[in-house]
């Protein structure tokens, strides 16, 4: 009897052990998967989207074309890892694999996280690209993927934020929009908002449709105000924030937002579809807004104005950029193959596909040149122009999540809460410094 009990326990343990090892990295033999043949080297790739979405399908097609193009040499096997809005599900899986092993050869990384992944040895530098290959990409993509002068990641998508305006309202008010190289300065923009205020009151609206939402949006949309003022949020090596995050320039930008709220140029509590319903003259939003307005709000006469700059702007790069990118994991033994896959997944052909299927901006010049709307539609052309000329990546630091959260928190408490700017910024610096300790104590 006792023996039977032991047998039972042993069986249960064995089952659970099988269950556990089931999570380990796949190491299939040729023939196990359709299309994986003898002599090919196997490359696994994780993407952060759901297979059934347009984005997922675009990645799938890119992998399929890769396997055709490199038939006999490489075989790429794609796995879809769904994520929630903030990237939760996907990063959980990456985190778990960092501990337990089982990272794929290539994985997607959100642009601002590249530094942290590189600093902690989760991804490794790509094999050398020729200068020609590098020049195919927009400068913002190369800069986003570079940490300490080494290229770690290449994205297939780029992104941009536009300052959209309602042409009819601006015409009614008699306001001229400047060209891309002479954007409105903060004080000019304030004058315009002031001028529009009575008109928008009449329309039961606000001159500006703007919010400071929790999450990545706030730093993505509004850090450009700091950059155009000549400030940076972190030092070049990404390891110092004191003197950057709490600099005069950051404070200037925060105070500017405060003045917009105080003068009631925007609604303190967000109102849905203010701009889309014709009750706001301006709106900051991602490039997807163009498509949204074209398809769902055809009555709005949409224009893209150059992103507003500080009065101290010196003509440098400052506009929002960045998106998910492909990188080679530190566990891959075939860095050449992984680099080929990264290049393919982010290349012009994949870029055109991601635009056609998911309406995300591509990342290479060639892709942009081969998509008609970027030549024919003035709004898309303006966004592309802004992105390729003035694109500035978000701060590169291993503690980026803390920097992003802090930026939103300070923005909210200063602009909406009316708290003391410098005190809030200093408090944020203390908090970020605590997180930086891990990287600076050696």
């Amino acid at each position: 009897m006792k023996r039977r009990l032991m047998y039972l326990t042993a069986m249960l343990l064995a089952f659970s052990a099988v269950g556990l090892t089931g999570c380990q990295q796949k190491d299939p033999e040729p023939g196990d998967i359709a299309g994986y043949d003898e002599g090919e080297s196997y490359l696994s790739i994780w993407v952060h989207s759901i297979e059934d979405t347009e984005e997922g399908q675009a990645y799938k097609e890119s992998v399929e074309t890769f396997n055709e193009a490199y038939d006999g040499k490489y075989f790429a096997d794609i796995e879809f890892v769904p994520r929630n809005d903030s990237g939760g599900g996907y990063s959980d899986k990456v985190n778990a694999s960092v501990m337990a092993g089982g990272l794929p050869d290539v994985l997607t990384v959100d642009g601002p996280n590249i530094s942290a992944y590189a600093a902690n040895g989760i991804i490794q530098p790509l094999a050398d690209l020729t200068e020609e290959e590098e020049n195919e990409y927009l400068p913002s993509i190369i800069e986003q993927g570079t940490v300490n002068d080494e290229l770690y990641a290449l994205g297939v998508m780029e992104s941009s934020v536009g300052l959209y305006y309602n042409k009819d309202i601006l015409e009614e008010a008699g306001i001229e929009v400047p060209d891309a190289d002479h954007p409105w300065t903060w004080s000019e923009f304030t004058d315009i908002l002031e001028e529009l205020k009575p008109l928008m009151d009449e329309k039961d609206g606000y001159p500006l449709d703007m919010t400071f939402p929790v999450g990545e949006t706030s730093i993505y949309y509004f850090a450009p105000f700091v950059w155009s003022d000549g400030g940076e949020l972190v030092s070049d090596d990404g390891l110092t924030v004191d003197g950057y995050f709490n600099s005069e320039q950051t404070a200037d930008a925060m105070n500017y937002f405060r003045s917009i709220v105080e003068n009631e140029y925007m609604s303190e509590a967000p109102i849905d579809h203010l701009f889309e319903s014709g009750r706001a003259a301006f709106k900051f939003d991602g490039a997807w807004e163009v498509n949204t307005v074209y398809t769902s709000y055809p009555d709005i006469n949409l224009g893209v104005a150059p992103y507003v700059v500080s009065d101290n702007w010196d003509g440098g790069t400052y506009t929002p950029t960045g998106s998910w990118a492909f990188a080679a994991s530190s566990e891959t033994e075939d860095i050449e193959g992984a680099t080929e896959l990264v290049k393919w997944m982010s290349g012009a052909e994949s870029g055109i596909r991601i635009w056609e299927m998911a309406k995300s901006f591509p990342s290479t010049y060639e892709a942009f040149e081969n998509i008609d709307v970027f030549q024919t539609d003035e709004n898309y052309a303006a966004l592309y122009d802004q992105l390729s000329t003035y694109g500035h990546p978000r701060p590169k630091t291993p503690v980026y999540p803390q920097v992003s959260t802090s930026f939103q928190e300070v923005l909210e408490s200063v602009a909406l809460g009316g708290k003391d700017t410098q005190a809030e910024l200093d408090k944020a610096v203390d908090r970020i410094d605590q997180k930086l300790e891990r990287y600076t104590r050696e």
Partner: protein
Amino acid sequence: MKRKNSIMGMAFFGPALVLLTLFLFLPMLLTFGFSFTDYFALNPELTHFVGLENYINIFKDELFVQSFLNTVKFVIIIVPLQCGGALLLALAINKCAHCKKYFKVAFFVPVVMSLAVVSTLWMQIYSPEGILNTLLANVGIDTQPFIHSADQALPSIAIMSVWQGVGYQMIIFLGGLQNINPALYEAAEMDHASGWQKFKDITLPELKPLCIFVFITVTIGAFRMLVQPMVMTGGGPDHSTYTIVYDIYETGTVNWEMGLASTMAIVFTIFVVILTIIQNTLTKDKEGRKHVHKKAKTN
């Protein structure tokens, strides 16, 4: 026979034990272990033993203290409203002669819906041009910011949570009410007891064990508040709806500080356990006394 029984028992119990060990006891032990280290999710190899440093640091952390206080505020608002509300609804439905089933289902539906869906729905209700503000405008009250102001966000979310959860406790109370022996009420009526007397001396004492159960589960549930603020406010404005569980999540998954997050989780667990023990002893004591009281009466 006995031995055979024990093997059968083991066979039924074994799988559950293995799964519980793997997915509950082991993680609990690991969390306890991690809470004394600086375990960083992106770089587990660099983990050091740091002793009680985390425990000291989290109490110096303003944000953790604030999230703790926020959570307590949530509990203080939610527990009485949800327990009382559930009881009132159950009483009303029990009295209701028509459409009993309709009301039962209507009040229970929010419980079945996903919290994320309910939260999104209430974001619309609370929005500056949403239904609630429109209703208020009709009776001459100015537009309220609700979840967009640091003062109103927490109560707004608490009320929405009560609405969402109250149906579940209502069903429990309803079951309890239907289990009360009607003879008790008949006897009371013969003594010309008023409605309030019947409620106070029959309904409440009979529901006592259920009340304790509901009270404790609602309290624990309120302490675990996470999804509503996460979806509706992101913990803002100005951290006014940031809860402990939210802080644990942010620290552990977003900032990758697993060690620190483990410490927070341990402190949180200890706090809830202590509170539950206090609740339990307090309510038990009273029950004991009442029992004695009753006995004395019957004697």
